[in-house]
């Protein structure tokens, strides 16, 4: 039988990362919604800083949230620790709060330091968070070149046009 879906705890995910002082930039669907997108998303995508201190903060933030590789068979020897994060780069995870994509780098945008100048500080679920700005969100989505993103890119570009028309 298909398992029932559980609700993604967007608020808790953002607060968990933020309260643990993780340096991250919100990208993907949640960033698009922050900029006005009308599309729905189920996961939280963030680009995290790869410094040792930040990796430790990330490990601490999620260690009690059962992080595991999304789509991987059960029982793999996956250990959530700093070493695992250092050895890898991008992690698509399931957690007890919902799906989280932790990205060390994104195609067309690079890592945290490269994206930082193109992020804006917004209040997301009661926390001040860095969110990738709209032109760069479009840029990285375009660079990813995934057919499934075409509609989303079209919507983001329409948003940019409306915003730049001076009405908002």
């Amino acid at each position, binding site marked *: *039988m*298909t*398992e*029932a*879906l*559980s*609700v*993604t705890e*967007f*608020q808790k995910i953002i607060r968990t990362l933020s309260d643990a002082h993780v340096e991250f930039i919100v990208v993907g669907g*949640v960033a698009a*919604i*922050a900029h*006005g*997108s*009308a599309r*729905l*998303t*189920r996961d939280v995508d963030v680009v995290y800083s790869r410094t040792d201190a930040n990796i430790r903060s990330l490990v601490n933030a999620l260690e009690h949230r059962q992080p595991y590789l999304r789509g991987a068979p059960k029982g793999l020897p996956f250990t959530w620790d700093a070493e695992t994060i250092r050895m890898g780069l991008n992690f698509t995870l399931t957690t007890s709060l919902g799906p989280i994509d932790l990205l060390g780098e994104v195609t067309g945008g690079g890592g945290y330091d490269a994206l930082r100048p193109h992020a804006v500080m*917004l*209040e*997301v*679920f*009661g926390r001040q968070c860095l969110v990738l700005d*709209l*032109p760069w969100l*479009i*840029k990285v989505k*375009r*660079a990813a*070149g995934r*057919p499934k993103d*075409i*509609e989303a*890119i*079209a*919507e983001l*570009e*329409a*948003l*940019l*046009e*409306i*915003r*730049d*028309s001076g*009405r*908002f």
Partner: protein
Amino acid sequence: MAKVPNIIPVTDLRQDAAAALKRLKSSQQPVVITQRGRPAAVLLSVEEYERAEQERQLLRRIARGEKEVAAGRGFDLAVALKEPETVHGAERKIPGDPELPRNPVIEAYKKDIDRTLLVENLRKTVPERMADLVSHERFAVEMRNAMIKREAKIKRKRSR
């Protein structure tokens, strides 16, 4: 079952055009105007007309694309997305970011974007948009789970 078409004789239209428009609005269906008992014209709302025009343009583009592909002048989707200038040639820019050239594939999709929803969202604050995300996601999960439950029930019935 097919819907019964909305029909108005041209004489009725002449006598009371406002009523015909009211009927068009309330039924949200095209109204067929008949003359001497035969269909002579179709009355459409502006929204319906614009939607049909957009669809026609999109179909025309698709047909043109198919012709180009058949003539060996097509482009791979991945190329079209990553290198729009290869496909489009012209360097039209997107407002707000001079580094983003327009992409013909995305432009075709953009025509169908409901901008009224976007304008509505832009009027909201970021926390309000986030609150919407939470409630919409809860609703979507609720609906999906209701469907899963229903499918399981049907399977159980069949297996008996």
